[in-house]
């Protein structure tokens, strides 16, 4: 029997990544923690205020509103993009010339920078010159995303679905492509229906990639900034002011570094908690189905 070698020196290989993460994430996060307990008027002078900023943010209506808007946005995005992405991946061809055509078409929205996506949709949805906005108005539909909060929400959601469903499609398609043909042959012999094939073969085999898709889409949608900022600027009123937009307004617009730091930490903890819950729940469902399923 070959004995497994243990060499702890391999940890030194992690050192460059650790240093990179320290400079790009850990040290800035420590600074944010320090700022959250102090007040500043500039010139690098800080005054200890204790928990005042946390109390102010936790009890502020502005924070509650932005938080619920953010949760609602992420919930709507996940509810639409995940099933739609899986459905498109299932409908895509498995062989032939259609495969590269579909894959490239799907990858195109992902290649466009976020601010450009925002600008495209900002112009596309305008009532005066935009193809979508002008057409809807001509059809007699009352649509104006600069004045109507519902129209603003619909525009941002449709834009996000257009931009990011492709990611779910590509991940799901990768998961589907990894299923060996023997599974389908066995299902055919058993006379399994399309729904059964999806439920007992395709879905369990896609579990891992779907976990990544859900996590990526949740985290991205929960910290969305650029596109709504370009399209609506957080309006009309504050109806599309998500947490990240509110945070930037507070930190850069008002230069309230202390409250902004406290809000950042709360934001960070919520993302950490929800990501951990998603990861734990979905990886355990995956393990249960691989132990007791197909």
């Amino acid at each position, binding site marked *: 029997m070959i004995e497994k070698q243990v060499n702890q020196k391999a940890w030194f290989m992690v050192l460059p990544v650790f240093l990179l993460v320290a400079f790009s994430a850990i*040290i800035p996060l*420590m*600074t944010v*923690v*320090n*700022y959250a*307990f*102090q007040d*500043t008027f500039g010139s*690098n002078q*800080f005054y*200890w205020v204790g*928990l005042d900023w*946390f*109390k102010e943010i*936790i*009890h502020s209506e502005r924070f509650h509103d932005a938080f619920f808007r953010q949760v609602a946005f992420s919930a709507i995005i996940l509810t639409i993009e995940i099933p739609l992405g899986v459905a498109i991946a299932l409908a895509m061809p498995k062989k032939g010339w259609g495969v590269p055509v579909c894959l490239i078409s799907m990858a195109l929205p992902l290649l466009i920078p976020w601010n450009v996506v925002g600008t495209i949709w900002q112009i596309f949805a305008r009532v005066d010159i935009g193809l979508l906005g002008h057409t809807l108005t001509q059809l007699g539909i009352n649509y104006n995303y600069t004045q109507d909060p519902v129209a603003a929400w619909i525009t941002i959601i449709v834009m996000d679905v257009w931009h990011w469903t492709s990611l779910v499609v590509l991940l799901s398609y990768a998961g589907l492509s990894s299923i060996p043909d023997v599974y389908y042959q066995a299902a055919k012999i058993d006379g399994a229906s399309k729904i059964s094939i999806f439920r007992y073969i395709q879905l369990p085999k896609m579990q891992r990639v779907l976990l990544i898709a859900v996590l990526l889409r949740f985290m991205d949608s929960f910290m969305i900034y650029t596109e709504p900022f370009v399209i609506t600027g957080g309006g009309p009123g504050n109806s599309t002011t998500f947490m990240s937009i509110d945070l930037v307004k507070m930190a850069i617009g008002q230069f309230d570094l202390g409250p902004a730091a406290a809000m950042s930490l*709360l934001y960070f*903890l919520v993302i*950490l*908690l929800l990501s*951990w819950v998603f990861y*734990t729940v979905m990886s*355990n469902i995956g*393990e249960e189905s691989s132990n007791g399923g197909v």
Partner: protein
Amino acid sequence: MNLSWMAWTLPTAIFFITIFCILVTMTIWEYKSPGGDPRVGVLRFETTRGDRVFVSLLGSAFIHIIWLALFPSISLWCAFAIALIYVCAVFKWV
């Protein structure tokens, strides 16, 4: 190296030193008893020591936040005491 831009204070420094000490202790514990002591607890899925530390730290942070939200005028040391009990419960049953 001038670190004044990081606006260090004694309490925040103590906080980070504590986190660092916890990580060092976990590393030594893992070195002495490798494998992470996996077990299935009340959450009905397998957790290692690292998972339990993560759950403890995250849960403690939320205990403090909830305390601030519900009882802003009562000392946060009460929340700290609850968090300590919570950490012991996590290491015992999770």
